[in-house]
Each structure stands twice: as structure tokens, then as C-alpha cells.
């Protein structure tokens, strides 16, 4: 049986310029197979936990050998026709420098169908259908949809600093420079493909702090955190978006500053937020290389902080479906997630064990209870923890 695969040579591919060439290669292979009346098969990396590997030297989850094969048959001919149809639209965008969201692409596809009756069978009933075709193409090419100029409206990642300067080259070649110290109380927000940005520091930056709650990050800045410390402060806004993940990776690689994560002490934060930021996710195996910051450390809230600062904590509600699910997921993670099984991550694993055993949780804002009349107390604790190396 003939094999057509973009395959491993695209792993971690960053060069958008390669895509038209690779597209032609894949299409050529498909065409040759068809000419020989051979059934072409397209292989895509299987993006799931059972195909995830973790090596602390690499630092993020990487895909194994498992592939999802899509063989051309009567059942898949519609999917493949749609993929080739969409590929043409995406290649046109690369060629012209056009940029679109998934929803816009859905309407562009509908427009093409509207103006060409032969394409009518391809029509998309809803955006889910066109989204799945875009995802299929990305899996096939092992690339990010951003490589095809398909951008999401990324949320989170509001960044404050008195010393960070961002340099951007626009698609038309024009250059832009953003000095974060000049933005006042307005944060800088990374968008689209932050990996393309260039960073510099006006003065040596000591650390970058990623705070789970954007509100708390804003409070710290308003109270003068970035004025008192040569730092970068980022509000993650819950589960980090692609932009936040790519941005943190950029800070880590270009500025070589230590990165700390400060968030709630609960199973959800450990697995869904911190793990994703540090090592990526199973769903994005093919892009974790650019969308994870392996050097980020977990600053807290740590279980010992509860005792040390007498933080108010509370029991996991047994009747709260979300909390119970998070605990169950934590149990599974300890068994099956290669990130938590790695000895290098023993500290994080122990926190998970502690959470499962004690069934208690503590929020990041609990630091405001230590001295309710001192608005700077949370900042003092954070800085003290960093200084003393009280993180994992």
C-alpha cells in the first residue's frame, strides 16, 4: 500500500516558507498513488496521552511513534476532498500574507462553495466541521495553524515590566518597538505568533513571575511590584493559551531569566495550568517545543505555605463535580502522565499526592490574609520565597 506522509520531517517545523513546498509534495504523492490506482494513506501524529513521552532533558511532552492513518476510501473521500480544498485556501493566505481566524475561514470556505456549484457537496454545515478540517491539515503537516496564518484571539498573558522592550517585524517589513515601561498601567499582550518577536532588556531582569489570576497580577503591579523589582510580571488568565505558552518560552529562551509560576494549590492548577505551561499538553504534542517553558518553577501556593503563613484553606467539596473530577484526573495523572512520572518532577508529584491525601485546597489570594492591612504582604512573601528558594 502506498504511503503518503508529511511525517517526521515536519516535526517542530517553524518555517512557514516550507509549507507550500510540503503541500505540493504531499499532493504529488497522492496524485501518483491515484494514477496507479493505489490507495493512498495519510499519516498524522497521534496526539494523546498514550503517545506522549517526557524526558526532563528535553523538558516537554513529545510524541511517540503512534500515527493516525487516514486511508482514502469511500468513507474518507469527503474528508480528504475537504482537506485539499481547504489547503488551497490556506496556501493562498500564505502567498498573499492574508490572516484569518477559524470563523473567518469557515465563511471564506462557504463563499467558495457558494460561487462554484461543483463544490456544493463540500459545504460546511457549521464551524465545527471546517475547524476539524483545519486541525486535520495541521496534524498532517505537523505544524501550527498559526503557520498557515490562522490565528486565534488568544487571551491572557498581560505583561508588565519597567525594563522589557519588544521588537516586532511586521509582515510588510516595517519594524515596531514596544517599551513596556512607557505603557503606564496598560499591559503588553502577546498575540498570534509571539515566537517571532525579539526581546531585549534595558536593565538586567532578575526574574519573571507568571500569576494564575490576571486580577492578582494587576493588583501586584498597581501596588508597585514591577517598580520595586527588576522583573516581568505576567497574568496567565487560567489555562495558558497558545500565546501565553509561546510568550513564556520566548522570555525563557531570549532573556534567560528564571521563571516562576504562582497560582492556587489544587489539582486543577497543577495539571491543567502549571503542567501545560511547563511541558505542554498531550493534545498539542506536535507543537509543545514552541509552546512550553520547561524552566518555569512552581512557587506556590505550596502545602507548607499553609502552615507557615497560616493560610485559610478549605476542604474539597465532595458534591462539586468539577473539583471531584479534578481529583480523579489527578489520580489518573499520577498513573499515566509521563510528566508526573518523571523523577525530576518529584516535587510536583508530591504536591499531587498531598492534595489527594488531604483533599484540601488553598487559593493564591489567601496570601492577602496574612496581614490584611498590609497590601504589600503578598509581594513580600513572593519575593521572600524566591530569595530563599522556596519553590519546586
Amino acid at each position, binding site marked *: 500500500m502506498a504511503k503518503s506522509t508529511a511525517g517526521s520531517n515536519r516535526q517542530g517545523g517553524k518555517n512557514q516558507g516550507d509549507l507550500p513546498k510540503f*503541500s*505540493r509534495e504531499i*499532493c*504529488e504523492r*497522492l*496524485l501518483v*498513488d*491515484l*494514477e*496507479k*490506482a*493505489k*490507495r493512498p494513506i495519510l499519516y498524522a501524529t497521534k496526539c494523546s496521552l498514550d503517545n506522549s513521552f517526557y524526558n526532563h532533558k528535553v523538558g516537554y511532552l513529545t510524541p511517540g511513534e503512534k500515527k493516525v492513518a487516514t486511508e*482514502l*476510501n*469511500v*468513507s474518507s*473521500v*469527503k474528508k*480528504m*476532498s475537504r482537506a*485539499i*480544498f481547504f*489547503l*488551497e485556501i490556506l*496556501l493562498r493566505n500564505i502567498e498573499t500574507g492574508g490572516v484569518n481566524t477559524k470563523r473567518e475561514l469557515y465563511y471564506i470556505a462557504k463563499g467558495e462553495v457558494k460561487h462554484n456549484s*461543483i*463544490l456544493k*457537496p*463540500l459545504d460546511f454545515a457549521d464551524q465545527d466541521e471546517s475547524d476539524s478540517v483545519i486541525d486535520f491539515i495541521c496534524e498532517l503537516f505537523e505544524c501550527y495553524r498559526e503557520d498557515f496564518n490562522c490565528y486565534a484571539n488568544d487571551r491572557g498573558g498581560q505583561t508588565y515590566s519597567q525594563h522589557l522592550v519588544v521588537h516586532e517585524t511586521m509582515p510588510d517589513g516595517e519594524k515596531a518597538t514596544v517599551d513596556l515601561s512607557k505603557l503606564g498601567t496598560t499591559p503588553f499582550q502577546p498575540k498570534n505568533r509571539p515566537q517571532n518577536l525579539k526581546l531585549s532588556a534595558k536593565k538586567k531582569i532578575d526574574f519573571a513571575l507568571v500569576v494564575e489570576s490576571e486580577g492578582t497580577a494587576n493588583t501586584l503591579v498597581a501596588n508597585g511590584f514591577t517598580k520595586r523589582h527588576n522583573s516581568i510580571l505576567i497574568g496567565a488568565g487560567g489555562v495558558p493559551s497558545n500565546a501565553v505558552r509561546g510568550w513564556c518560552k520566548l522570555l525563557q529562551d531570549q532573556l534567560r531569566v528564571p521563571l516562576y509560576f504562582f497560582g492556587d494549590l489544587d489539582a486543577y492548577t497543577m495539571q491543567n495550568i502549571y503542567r501545560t505551561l511547563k511541558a505542554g499538553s498531550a493534545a498539542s504534542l506536535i507543537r509543545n517545543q514552541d509552546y512550553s517553558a520547561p524552566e518555569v518553577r512552581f512557587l506556590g501556593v505550596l502545602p507548607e505555605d499553609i502552615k507557615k503563613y497560616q493560610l485559610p484553606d478549605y476542604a474539597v467539596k465532595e458534591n462539586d463535580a468539577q473539583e471531584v473530577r479534578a481529583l480523579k484526573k489527578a489520580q489518573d495523572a499520577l498513573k499515566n502522565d509521563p510528566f508526573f512520572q518523571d523523577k525530576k518532577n518529584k516535587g510536583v508529584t508530591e504536591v499531587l499526592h498531598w492534595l489527594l491525601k488531604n483533599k484540601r485546597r488553598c487559593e493564591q489570594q489567601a496570601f492577602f490574609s496574612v496581614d490584611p492591612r498590609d497590601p504589600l504582604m503578598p509581594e513580600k512573601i513572593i519575593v521572600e520565597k524566591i530569595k530563599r528558594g522556596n519553590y519546586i
Partner: protein
Amino acid sequence: MAKDSKASAKITTSSTAEYFSKNLQQVGFSSQVKAVLTTLKEAVDNALDACEEHNILPEIELWVEKMGSGTLKGSDKIRIKVLDNGPGIDGDDIPKVFGEYLASSKFGRGRCSRGQQGIGISAATTWAQLTNATGAKVISKTKAMRKAVSGTVEVDIKNNRGNMKDRETIDWDRPHGTSVEFTIDGRIQLNGEAGLLNYLNGTVLVNPHLTLHYNLPTGTGEEGGKAMERTTVERVASELPQIPEATEPHPHTMKLGEFIAHSHLFGRTKVGAWLKKGFSRVNEGTIKELVAAGIKKGVFEKNVDQLDDAEFKDLYTKIQNIPLMAPSTKSVLMIGEEALAKSIQRLGAVDFFSVVSRKPTICDFKPVEVEVAIARLQERGGESDNPVQVLRFANRVPLQFDKAACAIVQAIQTVNWRAYGLGQPKESLPLGPYIVAVSVVSPFIKFKNASKETVDASEELVEEIRRTLIQAGQRLSKYIKKEFRANELEEKRRYIEQFGPILVEGLCRITKAGDSRKKKASDGLMKILGRDADAAETALELAQAKLGGGKSSASAEVSDTDPIDVEAVAEDAGVDLKRASKKDAKSKKTAPAKVAAAAAKKPKIILPKKSAEA
């Protein structure tokens, strides 16, 4: 105690007619719509019962017509006329039949006749009299009469007697038969569950031997009330259903009151003889057991009218404790799968159907026979999200009200129809353009109310109906599966035709390939996908083969009549399944639909060998 002047008011007795005239809602006259339906139903039931009693193939013509406004607020004046070819009624009996309550030839006879007590038609006469001051206009002629008797029967409500006014003899161009006409207040509802058409369809379905002509208004609006349309449904069975002999009641199926009432039919007969002759499954051995249980021998020598209530009670209690054989199932009437299969096609064009007649069995100590017919109607093709249409029958009489509490509906809801390819919300009726007809026949059907609208849902009866439905569902699923395969094949072919060119052209544009490569790739693609279509074709053939071999999988309890043979029909109609599907992919008409259409035009029933030879 001092008597209050009011309390000392005379205690009077009322006649049966008086009771029913005040309580007509109990016997089906509780609404305007029901009044029309009940009147029609009673007249048709009587006609059918009379024909069957006298071995006459029934041919009935009926008219339901709006004549203007009724006397009751918001009602219409409705004329209902039913004309049959039955044996006719002797002139002297006409007032009894139409004007006297509880004057019945069928009361307590343990037969599966439609009517039982002799209430319904007299109630209709009463309703006509109360709302339009005129009774039932009757014309009747027996074979022996040279001229027909005509007159208007009215109920003498005070004395429960029927009086015939304007009696005359007239020439009538029929050898025998009866015509009865009521003018009542009511409202005509044609469609819906409580509609006249539903009733007529049901009656047609369970009476394959009936030829029915019905004249109904074409619309129910102000204007449409007058235009009438005549429809004829020909009989599909030329034999009358075998009416089983009446059986005596079984003592275990009676209540004490019924037991005592039963004795009144025997008068001066000795108790021993009464028990042995008047009941089924009671013999000399039973008498001995009763003696052993403590009944004095002398009691059996007394005449039944000499027994006092205490003695009756003692006898009744003891006999309940003696194990008796279950009642015979011979008294149960069957429509039969063959007749049902033919009859269901009179309801409209059907895609396919399945029918099951279970062997009579005992439920709640009463003989019961359950039959089920399920059909998919073409005209309801678009209603895949609506619940199926349920037709319920008790002793071949359609039941149209109070559906939820009925044993039949409860049984349908407990079957997992999803297993047979039908949609079904949890614990509800299945969905789709189907008719599910369930007929329960028993000489002792337990209704929930006097107007015979709902069969009481006992556990045993629900289970028996459920089993029948499951068998019918299994048969049906073979058609649905085959249809699924046919659709699958058709869809695959459609996919090849639609997506093949798009894929190849897209690839050629990206690779900038020329026309010769495009053609070569197109040919290659068609070859690859053609193999898939061949595989689907094989799957369809397998499904067809399975359908053809359906007989072997039918339960032993089921008679070996098979439902319509789709393939054979397709063949007969000159439709090649494979070609049809390919061709239809272009014409956008599905192959199964074409086959089904052919099936509807030319139904072919595979009969058991015996019947076919007969």
C-alpha cells in the same frame, strides 16, 4: 329519631334507561366529538357482530354529515347513518335492539363479540332523543320478509322500553339488512387520534373481511360541512373469521356478585348441575373437593334460587381455593397473520410491514390472544421525529381515548425499539412514520371504564403484548437493516460521484498537473472507490439473503406466514436493486423508495404453503 321533612322525601327507584340517560358520559358521550364517534362505533359494531353471527360477509356503508347548528351550545347537528347487509331484525325486535338497555343477545356469553352488554346503541338513541327530540330511524328487512319495516325507535326512559313510532312497511331494494340513522348534537373531527378516519382505518385493519364505503365531509369548516366524499375500501379476505364457540365462564374469573347473578340465569336448576353446566372447568371431581372443603352434600341438591347469600358466599369462597384448570383458549378469536398482512395494506401505501399473531394464552386466568401489525407508511415519510401512530383494539373495536393508561401503550413503551432500528426517547413511544396496531382479543377483556376506552394494564397482559411486539420488531428490523445497507450503498456511490472529481481537480491544481494526469488519476480513484462500493453491495446482498431466510429465524410460536417480500416485489416490478440505486443516485430518488413504491403498487404476500394451495 325525629324524621326531617326533607329526609323523609320518597325513595324512588329509577329504570336502567333513566340511569344511563343521566350518565351518558359514562358510556362514551362525554364530549361533542366523542358523541359522534361513539354513535358511529356502536352502529358499526352491531352491524359487524350481526353479520358474523349469521355468516354474512359484511358490507357496510356509512354517512357522517353536518346538517347545521345543534341545540347544545357550540355543537353541530350531525346525521349519522349506517347501512349494512346483515341478517336484518324482526320488526318486533327493533324497539328492543335500539331502545332498550341491557337487551342483548350477547350478554355474559363468553364470546369475543364486539358488543357485550347491550348498552351502546340504546345510549346513542337516548343521546339523539335528548339533543334532537327524535330517536333512531330504522329500516330493516330479514330474508324471510317480503317488505322492510321502517320506523323511529325512541327510548321510554321511565320504563326502559323501546317504542317504535311511524311504523310502516316499505319496499326496499335489499334482500336483507338494516339501516339506522341518528340525528344528534356533536362535532365531526376527522383527523388525529380521536378522529373518525383513525376509527375507520382501525376498523378496516382488524376486519379484513369487511367492505366499507364511507361518506364523510371533505372539510369540517363552515363551508366544508356540506361537500361529501365517498370512499370505498374493498375486503381483502373472503372468509369470515372463525367465530369460536362461546364458553361458560370460569369461576376463578368472577367476583361474588357476578357468581350470584350468574345463578339467576338458571333458576330452578340444582346447585350441582348449575356448577357443572354453568361453568367451565368444573366437574364431578370439583364437587367432591368442595364437599371435602366443608360444603354440605345437601347444598348441591338444592335449587340455586333457594340458596341464601351466606351459602353463595361460602360456595364462592371455597371454589376459589380449589385449584382448577385454566380456562380454555379455544374461545378466542384470531384475525390471523395472513389476513392482517393483507388488511394493513388497505391503510395506504406501505414501505414494509410485519405482522405477528401469538398463540392464545392465559393472562390473569383469562384466555387472551394478542396480534400485532407494524407498517411503515409512505405518506408519513417525513415524520421521522414524531411518535408512531398507535392503533389499539379490544375485541376488534378501536380504542381511541385515554391512551396513556392503556396496557397496549404501556407495553409498547417498555420495548426497546432502538434495537430494531427505530428511534425512541426513554420510556416513550418509538418514533417514525409507522403504524403500530395491537389487537387484544378475549371473551373477558378487562376495561378500565364502561365506555371501553382503555384496557386495564395487568402485569401479565402487558408482558404478553410486549412479547408479541418484540417478535414483530424483530421481523421489522430485517427490513430496516436491509434498507440501511441499500442506503449505505447508494450513499457510497453518491460520494464517489460527488467528491472524486473535486479531490482530483484540487490535487491537480496544487501540483499544477495537466489534463492527462488528471484523467489517469480520476480513473484510478474510481477504481479504488469502486471496490468499496462493491463491498457495500456484498453487504446489501447479505442483508437481503438474511431477509429471505427470515422464516427460519421466526419464533416457533409464530405462524410461518412471512410479510411482504421486497426483493420479489422489486423483481416483479422490474426494478433492479443494484441498477436502480446507481441510476437513482443521479435522479435523486432512492432505490429503496422505488422498490417500496413498487411494493405498494404490487403487493406480494408469501403465504404458507397450505393457505396458498387453499
